[in-house]
């Protein structure tokens, strides 16, 4: 048994898993939620009794049928796509380790491609607000030890990060929070009731589109000390909760990306800045992909912007806050995401009609690998290969290798692809 293993199920990166290994197989994992177990023993998310199919050999699609080929032949096929592309896109990366993300960024630079994070609409505006306001930062452990007020905004941690509430935010007991949930005020704002309602008092259910109004109401009450012209139901409860806090945190979920995300993040950041003048208060996105935060740290470090960098722009590097226009793209490289799962049927059909070639790196078969031109199976980060990942509060952690596999790690495949471009352009 290997003790205290780090889980790559979600952005929590829980570090208390006990993994039982037999030969090159993981047979049992203790202290893992359903998100994590789908990586360790290849089951479907939230369906632990259904298996996910692992990809074992590189594949190429000819006349609609997939054939297993050698790694070198797959590289050659992918190379043709890379060289012919004029408006290429590298998509996903939120479920890759940091080394793979760095390799993908290098590839995008050489390929003169646009690099689109899988959760651009959700996470990028947070980093923009963070850069503008310079918010108070604290590790999750300090939230566990000291926070007496927690607000979930458009988030359902039971689905996105199941152990978050146990390890850090609600039920965990810390140095100054010995009574756990009894010692905290927990609230949630959402457009429909979720499992979080069970432990969130108050649970404020608003209508879709009322998010900004609610935020403006909170700002008017707290910052300006005025009665807002129009008050959303639940505003007063939230005002009371926030004004009584002595140490708090707001966790924001993917719900914000379905509304005016940039305005919401900006409003929440302004609110937290005001709260910070009185008490320590932090603002975090509830990142459900295990290394989403690492990708934005990399983008900020390398390009200076959290938005999608485009290395093919005529004016040099530019970064786009808006999602890519799929009609522009003529070649796709997808890694660390299941693109077709998130696309509408019309968008998938449009890509298919235009015969946009797709290269996919994935450890498991998914909707995108089923349509891809070239598929590279890769080793699982943190289980079959070492990697580095950033926890949702920005803390980098090293992932260890537990079992051996003949599959290559994703950063190596991406580096090999970059090598092809280097050779072809003489660079």
């Amino acid at each position, binding site marked *: 048994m290997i003790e205290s293993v780090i889980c790559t199920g979600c952005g929590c990166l829980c570090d208390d898993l006990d993994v039982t290994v037999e030969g090159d197989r993981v047979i049992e994992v203790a202290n893992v939620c359903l998100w994590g177990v789908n990586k360790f023993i290849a089951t479907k998310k939230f369906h632990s009794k259904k298996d996910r199919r692992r990809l074992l050999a590189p594949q190429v699609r000819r006349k609609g049928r997939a054939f297993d080929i050698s790694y070198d032949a797959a590289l050659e096929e992918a190379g043709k796509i890379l060289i012919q592309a004029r408006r290429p896109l590298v998509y996903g990366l939120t479920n890759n380790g940091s080394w793979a993300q760095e390799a993908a960024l290098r590839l995008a630079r050489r390929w003169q491609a646009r690099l689109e994070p899988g959760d651009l609409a959700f996470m990028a505006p947070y980093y923009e607000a963070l850069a503008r306001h310079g918010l108070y930062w604290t590790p999750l452990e300090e939230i566990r030890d000291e926070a007496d007020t927690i607000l979930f905004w458009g988030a359902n941690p039971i689905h996105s990060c199941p152990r978050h509430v146990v*390890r850090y935010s609600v039920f965990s007991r810390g140095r100054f929070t010995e009574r756990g949930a009894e010692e905290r005020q927990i609230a949630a704002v959402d457009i429909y009731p979720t499992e979080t309602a069970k432990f969130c008092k108050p649970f404020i259910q608003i209508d879709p589109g009322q998010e900004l109004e609610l935020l403006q109401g909170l700002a008017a009450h707290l910052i300006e000390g005025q009665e807002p012209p129009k008050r959303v139901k639940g505003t007063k409860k939230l005002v009371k909760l926030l004004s009584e806090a002595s140490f708090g945190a707001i966790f924001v979920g993917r719900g914000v990306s379905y509304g005016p995300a940039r305005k919401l993040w900006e409003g929440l950041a302004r609110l937290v800045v005001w709260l910070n003048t009185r008490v320590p208060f932090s603002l975090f996105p509830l990142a459900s992909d295990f290394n989403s935060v690492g990708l934005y740290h990399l983008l900020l470090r390398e390009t200076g912007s959290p938005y999608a960098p485009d290395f093919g722009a005529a004016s040099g590097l530019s970064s786009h806050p808006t999602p890519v226009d799929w009609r522009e793209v003529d070649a796709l490289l997808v890694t660390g995401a299941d693109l077709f799962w998130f696309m509408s049927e019309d968008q998938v059909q449009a890509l298919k009609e235009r015969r946009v070639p797709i290269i996919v790196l994935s450890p498991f078969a998914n909707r995108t690998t089923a349509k891809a031109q070239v598929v590279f199976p890769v080793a699982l980060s943190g289980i079959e290969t070492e990697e580095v990942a950033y926890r949702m509060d920005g803390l980098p952690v090293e992932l260890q290798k537990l079992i051996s596999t003949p599959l290559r790690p994703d950063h190596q495949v991406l580096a090999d692809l970059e090598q092809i471009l280097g050779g072809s352009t003489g660079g």
Partner: protein
Amino acid sequence: MATVEEVLEFLPRTDCGQCGMTCAEFAALLVSRDLSPEDCPVLHEPEYAGFIEALHEILGPAEAAITAGMLIDQDKCNGCGICVAVCEYHLGNCDEARLGRGPRPQDKVVFHVVNGTAVVVHQELCTRLVQAAEKCNKCADHCPTGAITLV
């Protein structure tokens, strides 16, 4: 009083599913006397001769059966571990669980999370059994998916 672990020693532990559940679930139902050792089809095979009698011996007479226990619906449980953190027994006896971390392998716990679902390990430690059945409902009360039923 027999524990789930002791009972498991005399079950095939192959999780073949012929009884419609895993061996651990079957063991929990044996301890609560909802099933009897004869209900396991595999134990009737010659290879397991004597196991049924041994199980009757360690389970003891029916009067000694656990009258209050818990059943975990594995289809509903998502392994969040809230039940492990709020358990009244763990509060005083397992530091790791009390602080929100997973119990260590050597810790004696009522239940812990394995492969994404909560599994009862030492039902006999549950406060409902040793003190007062009606006084502790914490695990079932806090379960966000309603996976725990107290019986």
